[in-house]
């Protein structure tokens, strides 16, 4: 189900996610804080899962945006369909989730690597309005990765 949302909402959420992911990379680079990094990546993965299943508008960050940020901004020029950011959340879920699961199998390098990859996407979304759904959805569909 898709709804119409303020396009700045997902970017606000992406900024929070990018910050958390940068912290996660930092924590994941040292053996003494690796378990913290693993736990944080798990929390971030749950965040992506929430966004991918329930959509960005029903995400805690979406709620935060509605309550705290949007009242301070001018009205948006247009609304966007929630399917684009929802797709991006799904990609985030796959990337972060892969690192989180591999972490349980002793492949601990996957934790900072997955966090770093997800960071790049979240950062580009927040800072440059880069839209994963625009860039790769059609390519994946053409490659028959998704139907």
């Amino acid at each position, binding site marked *: 189900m898709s709804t119409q949302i303020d396009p700045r909402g997902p970017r606000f959420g992406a900024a929070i996610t990018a910050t958390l992911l940068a912290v996660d990379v930092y924590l994941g680079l040292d053996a003494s804080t690796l378990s913290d990094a693993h736990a944080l990546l798990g929390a971030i993965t749950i965040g992506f899962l929430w966004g991918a299943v329930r959509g960005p508008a029903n995400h805690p960050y979406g709620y935060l945006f509605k309550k705290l940020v949007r009242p301070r901004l001018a009205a948006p020029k247009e609304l966007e369909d929630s399917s684009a950011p929802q797709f991006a959340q799904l990609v985030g879920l796959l990337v972060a989730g892969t690192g989180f699961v591999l972490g349980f199998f002793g492949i601990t390098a996957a934790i900072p690597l997955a966090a770093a990859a997800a960071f790049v996407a979240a950062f580009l979304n927040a800072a*440059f309005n880069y839209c994963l759904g625009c860039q790769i959805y059609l390519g994946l569909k053409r490659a028959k990765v998704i139907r």
Partner: protein
Amino acid sequence: MPEELRLSLVVGLIAFAGVLGWVWRVRTGRAKAIDRGELIDLKRLQATKSGLPVVAFGRRVTFLQFSSETCSTCKQTARLFDELEQTAEDVLHIEVDITNRLDLAKKFHVIQTPTTLVLDHTGRVTSRIGGAPKQSTIDQQLGSFAI
């Protein structure tokens, strides 16, 4: 891992993402001239506009925009062209959702959306714009078709 190294790696990651975003922003939405472009077949395109089939090209220029379902910038691009259309009646904007028209995606090698083909009054492709077109790109294209 030493603290300084961890910090430098995280800063390096942020810088990498920043450069990536900057390069992407500079390159996206620019027009690439096409020599001896092909003629667009409106029958095959089966485009509709306000519910009616499109049967003629713009008298001056046509912007044929390919969009997809999970694309937020497609909508912003469509709005830009719609505004332009209202000020210049010899300009036509056609938007085709190719999410389920993979035949078109394949034929025109569309990977990212929006991808816009610029057509002359006979329907021949003269330029191609990958990503959300910059206003300067649109102005420049219009200028090249000045009567």
